[in-house]
């Protein structure tokens, strides 16, 4: 029984580490703010839940009352992060959008800002201009949104 629980906890912890590696690499290499947000929000939350679940299983592997309460506390951490991490990602995303951080689009070739990622300016072909007309949040719109929220 002990070996099964230990193995289960190791599997959970290392799958969480794989997801966290995705979050880490994505946060480093994605080209603009919104995609980085995507990597951070999803990968971070899922990996935290997986690793905390693995630790709870590992604590429960030698079962007594103290370890039961400790496992409940660890599950409480998982629930807390599951609630708060997507909310904070959403709030930071909204703050960035209201501040007018532009996404990297393929349509406005001149408007591409080098946001620090490995995004190559010259790789766009010129005839993709008519495809997508990306809406850029103007200052008036963001002010209106700010008042309405």
């Amino acid at each position, binding site marked *: 029984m002990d070996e099964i629980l230990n193995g289960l906890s190791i599997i959970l912890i290392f799958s969480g580490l794989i997801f966290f590696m995705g979050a880490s690499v994505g946060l480093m290499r994605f080209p603009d703010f919104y995609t980085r947000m995507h990597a951070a929000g999803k990968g971070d939350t899922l990996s935290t839940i997986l690793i905390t679940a693995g630790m709870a299983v590992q604590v429960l592997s030698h079962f007594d009352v103290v370890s039961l309460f400790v496992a409940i506390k660890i599950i409480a951490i998982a629930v807390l992060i599951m609630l708060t991490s997507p*909310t904070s990602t959403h*709030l930071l995303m*909204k703050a960035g959008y209201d501040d007018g951080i532009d996404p990297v689009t393929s349509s406005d070739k001149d408007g591409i800002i080098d946001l620090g990622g490995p995004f190559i300016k010259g790789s766009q072909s010129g005839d993709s201009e008519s495809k997508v007309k990306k809406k850029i949040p103007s200052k008036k719109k963001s002010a209106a949104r700010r008042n309405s*929220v």
Partner: protein
Amino acid sequence: MKVFGLVAVFVVGLLLLSATQDFPSWGNPRSAASDGEVSSFYIEKTEAVTKVPNMVTAVLADFRGYDTMFETVVIFIAGIGIIAVLRNFEGSDSSIDYDNDDNGAGLLARFTCSLILPFIQIFALYVVAHGHHSPGGGFQGGVMLGASYILLALAFGLSKAKRIFSERRTMIFAVVGIFIYVGWGVLCLLLGGEFLNYSVLDSILPGDAMMARSYSMLVVEIGVAFTVTAIMFSMYSNLSTRGRLSKGL
């Protein structure tokens, strides 16, 4: 200027790193900190004398209670100082517009905060009350409790938090905390012991003299938590609104 700052940081960091060589090695039983008479008394006798397994709390609230009392007073003075420097009384009465004030950080943040706020507050009370057995105590629990009110102010707007924890109530809480601490010491004085010598309180508390010390630590920690909670929230509300206490961050 940036380069100069960087060089200064590196030089100071190298100095500090070179100074760490003079430290006693990790876990050395003959180092100055653990070899003294006082330390060995704390380590050997704390649990026997006070029935508190967490040595840090016992040293903080019992053996050096006089010190902790004035630490609490220092926190109170810091809060008073921030109010004295920042508080702007002009126009604060008429311009508070409770309907047109900021109404928080949006629906999602409000919902999440209403879910996790009770959890944080219960955990903070647990930290205060369970400081004898696990890491914690009045300062830590008070900071968490104050942070829960700051979270309320951030999510629902400062005006709503002010309706729950108004400025007058904040100051009353801060004073009550110090009053609990000092009053407990004066109670010891009235019962014939020294100031903050909790063991004379066994005539009014259940249990023997050691349990009286344990209970007294709990009372003292509650006093510290009152003050720290109130001062934390007062500092936040003054600093984030530049003393106007309306339309904050």
